[in-house]
């Protein structure tokens, strides 16, 4: 039975929202060969061996929606692809990452499956998939398997790749549903970007981009810190005090974030670890002193260490001292101790970085469909630039940062889109996503402000990805609409029945566009008070419910030429609808439409221009 094997034909790392789920996944193309003829119930002892090595598999609900569901499926008979999925998920659990989403689907080729596993971190999930294959094969072949070694190995990998716990507290709070701030990990260390483009903020454990390097240096110099604190009237440890008689005072750590006290704990005298949460006992004057101490040192996040008799009394009424101000303080210890009703620390930091409910989101426009997508992307970019936004564009003919072309060739992909979202100058992003990108790479953003679907050719299939039916094609393109923010807009081609079907999938508003004013979809949408864009009487019209306004006559749009092709008309409609969705001012839309040319403003001029000396005039 040598040929009984499970082989990974290909493992795709899909790094963003995709046809399966909103989260990154690994999609393994698995060939189970002859095992197609051996469902689990036909392999003697297989289920028992599997359950012995992974007893927690019994918690998997699977198809039956109840605990033990998956074990029942095993006993009734299921195939290695499906088993691989569950084992990989369980191994992720063991490694210390939450299990999450999994799928196993046939491809249409006998014995070849797509096994999809949510990937909190690519490397960890890859290791879990590999381990799952070995484990399942050992169970099938009834050979020895060292499950403990696997546990250790996977935990070690997880430790190496997962975010540190202090960073994770903040990232989890940011990305939680009630905040909805996107996060991009920028390095294998704990450097994480929260938000996109120019609205991003950076964190690194309990440091933020507002944590000053000088302040950090001061905090690490205890003598200087004490001197500065004392200069502002804060009580500090007298060096001669250290030798004095045994101290009745207790050490406390007060955690200050953005000028507010967010947590306080009594510490173990010996190891400095946090012992008891006292957040709700701290006297306001004590809290004010802690905040002042952080301010004097210059830290936005600080642990302020006190020695006091009673933290619920004001500083002045007791022999209290500040023993130090700690930069990048440990958050996790406070978090673990905190009572359920005390405010979460990660959230406090997120609110400090993003006050007033800001989400750090710049307008992101995702454009997909068959045909015209690149041109629509250029149009939308032009509108955004004209409205004063530094706009990044990743599309079929390059990567552009404002007017500068940074890269040639097809840049409508995950990498280039990510580059734009990482760029601190970018006020708005326009990103083209082909079906292949959605299938093979995923979207580069978690949610977007505007999704544009220009149209779908149901006959174009993607056999590389086993997308062979129009239903499957629909699933691919709908991913773009699925990620529209509740406050966002899907711009959909009303003349394309498959695109129209996507309207109910959108969490936000829908704007339909079509050349033909009388299209029933358009009419219906207007009746319900929706926004539509269309042509009428040689004019480009914006319809808002029953109201309509002329944007400009088609004759004033040079892009359309004398005899506009249907394709170009569609481009203009989609672009104008997207601009409207982005609240671009009408006069800006008009000027954009009147002046747009697919050839970007010539950039080469600057290369040949004489250097301009840098002006160095300071206050006269």
């Amino acid at each position, binding site marked *: 039975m040598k040929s009984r094997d499970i082989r990974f034909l290909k493992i795709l790392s899909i790094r963003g929202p995709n046809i399966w789920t909103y989260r990154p996944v690994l999609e393994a193309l698995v060939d189970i060969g002859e095992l197609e003829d051996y469902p689990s119930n036909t392999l003697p002892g297989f289920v028992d061996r599997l359950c012995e090595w992974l007893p927690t598999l019994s918690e998997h609900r699977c198809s039956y929606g109840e605990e033990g569901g998956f074990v029942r499926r095993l006993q009734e008979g299921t195939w290695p692809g499906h088993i691989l999925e569950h084992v990989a998920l369980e191994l992720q659990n063991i490694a210390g990452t939450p299990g999450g989403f999994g799928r196993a689907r046939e491809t249409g080729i006998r014995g070849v499956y797509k096994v999809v596993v949510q990937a909190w971190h690519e490397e960890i999930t890859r290791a879990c998939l590999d381990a799952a294959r070995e484990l399942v094969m050992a169970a099938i072949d009834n050979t020895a398997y060292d499950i403990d070694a696997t546990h250790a190995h996977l935990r070690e990998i997880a430790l190496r790749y997962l975010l540190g716990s202090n960073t994770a507290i903040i990232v989890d709070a940011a990305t939680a549903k009630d905040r909805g701030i996107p996060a991009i990990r920028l390095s294998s260390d704990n450097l994480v970007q929260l938000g996109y483009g120019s609205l991003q903020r950076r964190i690194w454990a309990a440091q933020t981009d507002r944590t*000053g390097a000088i302040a950090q240096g001061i905090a690490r110099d205890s003598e200087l810190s004490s001197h500065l604190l004392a200069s*502002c009237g804060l009580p500090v440890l007298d060096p001669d005090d250290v030798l004095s008689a045994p101290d009745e005072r207790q050490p406390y750590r007060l955690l200050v974030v953005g000028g507010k006290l967010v947590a306080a704990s009594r510490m173990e005298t010996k190891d400095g670890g946090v012992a008891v949460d006292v957040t709700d006992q701290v006297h306001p004057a004590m809290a004010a002193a802690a905040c002042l101490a952080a301010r004097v040192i210059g830290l936005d996040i600080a642990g302020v260490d006190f020695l006091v008799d009673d933290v619920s009394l004001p500083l002045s009424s007791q022999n209290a001292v500040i023993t130090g101000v700690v930069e990048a303080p440990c958050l996790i210890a406070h978090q673990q101790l905190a009572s359920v009703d005390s405010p979460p620390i990660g959230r406090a930091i997120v609110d400090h970085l993003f006050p007033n409910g800001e989400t750090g989101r710049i307008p992101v426009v995702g454009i997909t469909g068959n045909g015209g997508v690149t041109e629509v992307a250029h149009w939308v970019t032009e509108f955004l630039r004209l409205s004063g936004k530094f706009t990044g564009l990743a599309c079929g003919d390059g990567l552009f940062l404002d007017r500068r072309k940074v890269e040639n060739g097809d840049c409508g992909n995950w990498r280039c889109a990510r580059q734009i979202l990482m760029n601190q100058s970018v006020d708005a992003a326009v990103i083209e996503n082909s079906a292949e990108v959605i299938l093979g790479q995923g979207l580069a953003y978690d949610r977007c402000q505007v999704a544009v679907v220009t149209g779908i050719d149901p006959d174009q299939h993607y056999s590389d990805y086993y997308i062979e039916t129009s239903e499957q094609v629909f699933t691919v393109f709908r991913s773009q609409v699925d990620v529209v923010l509740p406050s966002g807009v899907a711009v959909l081609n009303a003349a394309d029945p498959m695109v129209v079907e996507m309207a109910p999938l959108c969490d936000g508003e829908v704007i339909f566009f079509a050349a033909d004013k009388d299209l029933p979809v358009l009419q219906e949408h207007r009746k319900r008070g929706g926004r539509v864009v269309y042509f009428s009487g040689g004019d480009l019209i914006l319809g808002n419910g029953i109201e309509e306004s002329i944007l400009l006559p088609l004759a004033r749009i040079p892009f359309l030429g004398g005899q506009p092709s249907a394709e170009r008309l569609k481009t203009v409609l989609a672009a104008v609808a997207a601009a409207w969705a982005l609240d671009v001012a009408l006069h800006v839309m008009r000027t954009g439409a009147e002046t747009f040319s697919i050839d970007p403003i010539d950039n080469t001029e600057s290369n040949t221009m004489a250097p301009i000396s840098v002006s160095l005039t300071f206050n006269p």
Partner: protein
Amino acid sequence: MIILNIRVLRGPNLWGLHKAIQLLVNFSDQEYCFDHLPGFEDCLRERFPQIGSFPPNATMANALELAVLGLQAQAGCPVAFSRSVITLDPAIYQVIVEYTEEVVGRLAVELAFELCVAARSRLPFDLSDALNRLRELDEDVRLGPSTGAIVSAAVARGIPFRRLTDGSLVQFGWGYKQRRIQAAECDSTGAIAETIAQDKELTKYLLEAAGVPVPKGRPVSDAEDAWTAARELGGPVVIKPRDGQQGKGVAANIESREDVLAAYAVAHEVSPNVMVERYLSGQDYRLLVIGGRLVAAARREPPHVIGDGEHNIQELVEEINSDPLRGSGHATTLTKIRLDDIAIATLAHQNLNVSSVPFKGARVLLRNNANLSTGGTATDVTDDVHQEIAARAIDAAKMVGLDLCGVDVVCESVLTPLENQLGGVIEVNAAPGLRMHLQPSFGKGRPVGEAIISTMFDERDDGRIPVVAVSGTNGKTTTVRLIAHLLGLSGKRVGMTNSDGVYINNERIDTGDCSGPRSARIVLFHPDVDAAVLETARGGILREGLGFDSCNVAVITNIGMGDHLGLNHISNADELGLVKRVLVHSVAPHGVAVLNAADPIVANMAAVCPGSVTFFARDCHERVLANHLVQGKRGVYVDGDAIVGAKGKLRYRVALSEIPITLNGTIHFQTENAMAAIGAAWGLGIPWDQIRQGLATFSSDAETVPGRFNMFTYRGATLIADYGHNPDAIKVLVEAIDSIPANRRIVVVSGAGDRRDEDLSQQTEILGGAFDDVILYQDNCQRGRSDGEVIALLRNGLKNASRTTWIEEISGEFLAIDIALERLNSGDLCLILIDRIEESLAHIAKRIKEG
């Protein structure tokens, strides 16, 4: 010659606005005059030829003075001011010399003393050693060139600064406006950004994402992969171990397959992780980006020699180092080239050693890095930088997140965009050195310090908060509290110092007499202070100078007969006036001095005020005030039932009935305090409505102004507690009490031992004419007098008392109070001149509560 004491005057002082060291020196009869020391001046000049010229009738004090000044000046410190002043004791002189660095000044004093002694005793003095010690110490403690340039730029804009450490950590501005720098790094420079900049790979990744050209490349798995990578990159490549050090195993500028394979093998020996990167050809440039603008650029060259075909490398280096522009530290434009281990290793890498003779025209590198401090050179190219290169440098700084950033670029020329040549950014540096831009080896220096300051402070912002300094013999504390109250009402968080403590936004953070420069500095340092009101007593001015370099408003309430006379060589009221005048001298050009026109010594201070003057006096016909008003200048006076602020035809009236502390204008000294405060508030631009509201809500109770005319009622009698301690204070108290009807008057009084005999007696002389019963008390604190001495002086003052009929001597403040209270009947009045303010007020409060 004995130096009795040394004082360091760190702020504006009796002698001027500059920092100075003040020596108190005792000379013996024989030595104090040059005439008694034949040949001394020649001996002195022999040992220190550069010493300045002496005035006629020069004394040893002049010798010491000019030696301290001259030694500092010769060591390179920019100092100019010095003085010698004889005291009342003809053998004791005050010698005052400007300094720039305190420790250097102190060392200069030490060396000057040695010099004078040596000259007198005809002993040798090693001048060059002395100057070297001073120079070295100065270079050690003074700010480095980068920090120095930033501080100078701040000073030029009038921004105050304070060094927080002996190093390069400097704070600019006061109160809530304060900002910090540390070398070329400012408080907004992020710790995360610095960490990123230190990680070359991460930096490269981020820059590439931002579209900044960087040496592209990737790790390779084997030699063949290295060749594949080289072909992918196209053009010459660098092959290097990924975590190598000091260029070990690095091969640059290679293109052929053979070379790539060979280089891989070499790199692989150093580290299993080998990188292939695009080779950037050209020269090293440093672009300085500050606040999103390119401010300066320099081409940097590592130390090198050019062969002449005759001399060996060592000789060539010696020749270069003989250039006087090359020094050993940071002080000179260029630094000497060192032929150290690194240089020798660099030579070995080129198959050379120090005795090799390079052929004519050959350029031999002695180091791979171009730091000025190791002998490199920098050429300013700021004006040549192409806008696209500048834009990429700015992009790089932004992507890493540095507001102050040195971007290292390698390219053939900065005249064309990087994209058009094989150029790129190789590194981004936090806290970049500024010396190469301030004093490049070749080309123009750039105003880099100014650029940094302009990112921290807006064009019109000098980092200062409003500062009001208050001094005078009496009324200071009430005036300070009243001004603070008026400022607080206008929404400002007020920092206040007075003789009770330091207050920040109404919270006391320090106790005791806080009217000195240290307390002033605490207030100005505090981040939660929007405005400062500083009581400024004479002691601090004499001891250390002011705690600030200039103020917006200086208020001098009065000098009168003076207080504390006889202390610190201040023997009369005129001299005391000179001390308090320092405040007026420190008023900013746009500031205001608020001066008591009725006090001639105070009125005379107007002459030294760099700003404008507001005079106040109860009587608008008072000559100084009237002359001032007639010229359209500001004055404050009493007109009928109101205090009036007048300027030209403008009149602002505040009814006395609306100023509770004046008791409808009956308490004259409180009226004067109110006028002084009004003058200050007016000078600060506080609207009159707010001034009126503030005056109406300010009361003279024991909480607000403890020990300042606090009135109580006890068993139907009136109690007044006050901290009055000098004849002037007593006089105004008596004046005030005269307006309060009473059957019988009792006073409880003690004396502070550190006052002059006549001042102590004078207090009771005044009281004897106004009180029926006098209770004299003494407490533990005799301030240097023997037991009973003070009481005797007080009793002496009562000898010819016109009203006093009953005198009692008590030991202990509380007991004295209790005895006075027992004697009181309804309708009587009792003035308690308290010494320990808080304790006694608490005691009085307790007795009143008991009823």
